[in-house]
């Protein structure tokens, strides 16, 4: 690991000031991606701004048909939350599929969303459920937030404080895991609201999470797996690597989308 200066702010305002003052620094939430990246010297931030003391950024609430999860809430807390399980069971199930139990005890929803790893799980839930990402400065629609591989709408000194998910009629997440890393080779989140269906795909796109409008239109006409018969996503623009080539990922998208629709009921 390269050297860094360590800061442990006691408030979001202090953290934002530090992040603004040290633009080559990094915010440390659960650290389950950032620390391995630093250990491999793929990242060398000048400053680490450790958010672990910002206890007011932890917690889950459900009000007026919206589940709001504060940014430093750990995956384990989302996976086991009775409120999330009751309101959006697919979201709790997704959280329980991230990494392994020890990783879920540290990793946070805000960290995952801010990082926007192209194979991370949460971005698909944000996009399919039409979530709003709230920061210390503004509220950003998920459709505007994810801007490409590891790219988001976040500006310097901007910190995610919470993420709000409107409760859908039905939703399901199906993940085809890389058996070693547990990241999604392909993950498909399907959400049905009154009159609308959104389908978001993670793990597959070379530019990160994306929506499949063609699938959405077909499912809005008929919310059943058969509605996707004969439909597919083009392999161009999908990732190809030693784990799966683009054609295989394209095939998996349809398969996982059908499974998600079937499981959503």
């Amino acid at each position: 690991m390269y050297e860094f200066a360590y800061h442990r702010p006691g408030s979001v305002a202090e953290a934002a000031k530090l992040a603004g003052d040290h633009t080559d620094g990094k915010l440390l939430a659960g650290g389950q991606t950032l620390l391995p990246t630093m250990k491999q010297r793929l990242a060398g931030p000048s400053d680490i701004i450790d958010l672990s003391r910002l206890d007011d950024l932890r917690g889950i609430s459900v009000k007026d048909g919206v589940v709001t999860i504060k940014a430093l809430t750990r995956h384990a807390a989302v996976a086991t939350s009775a409120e999330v399980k009751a309101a959006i069971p697919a979201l709790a199930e997704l959280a329980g599929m991230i990494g392994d139990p020890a990783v879920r005890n540290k990793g946070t929803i805000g960290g995952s969303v801010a990082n926007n790893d192209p194979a991370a799980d949460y971005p698909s839930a944000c996009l399919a459920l039409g979530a709003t990402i709230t920061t210390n400065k503004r509220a950003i629609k998920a459709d505007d937030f994810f801007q490409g591989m590891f790219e988001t709408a976040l500006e310097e000194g901007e910190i995610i404080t919470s993420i709000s998910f409107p409760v859908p009629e039905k939703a399901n997440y199906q993940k085809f895991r890389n058996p070693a890393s547990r990241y999604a080779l392909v993950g498909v989140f399907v959400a049905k609201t009154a009159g609308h269906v959104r389908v978001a795909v993670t793990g597959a796109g070379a530019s990160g999470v994306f929506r499949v409008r063609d699938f959405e239109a077909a499912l809005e006409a008929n919310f059943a797996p058969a509605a996707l018969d004969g439909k597919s996503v083009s392999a161009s623009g999908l990732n190809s690597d030693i784990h799966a080539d683009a054609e295989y990922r394209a095939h998996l998208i349809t398969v996982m989308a059908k499974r998600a629709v079937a499981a959503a009921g």
Partner: protein
Amino acid sequence: MTAVSMTVNGQHVSAEIDPRTLLVQFLREELRMTGTHVGCDTSQCGCCVVHVNGDAVKSCTTLALTCDGASVTTIEGLAKGDELHPMQAAFRENHGLQCGFCTPGMIMTAVELVSRKGTNLDEHTIREELEGNLCRCTGYHNIVKAIAAGAQAMGTAAE
């Protein structure tokens, strides 16, 4: 150098450390408690699992400074004197190890699992919960048996 203090296995410890120090380095190199192992050093193998405020975490993927003020339990903190913790005893009785390198992490994961899911654990649950702990010797079979037996014994011990 930055000051850090925490409670490790009930003992208050403090030191001046480089901010880069990982929790596992602090435990092994600063405190000379070498029961916690470094296997892969990439948060996959689970040899380094310890409890921080009761939660099982990978100490190779945790900064020691983040644990300032925390209560940490390592494999050295489980036994009561010469009496093994029920989970440790179950690993011995069920031959839940061969080379033993992964065992500290397996046991720390298993003890936290019992705290979350109780003392009656089926094989499916145990195998799923061991997702983050790799063993290259046993094929897991006796580890799973040991955890089921250890969980039962923890229930009996608590009565």
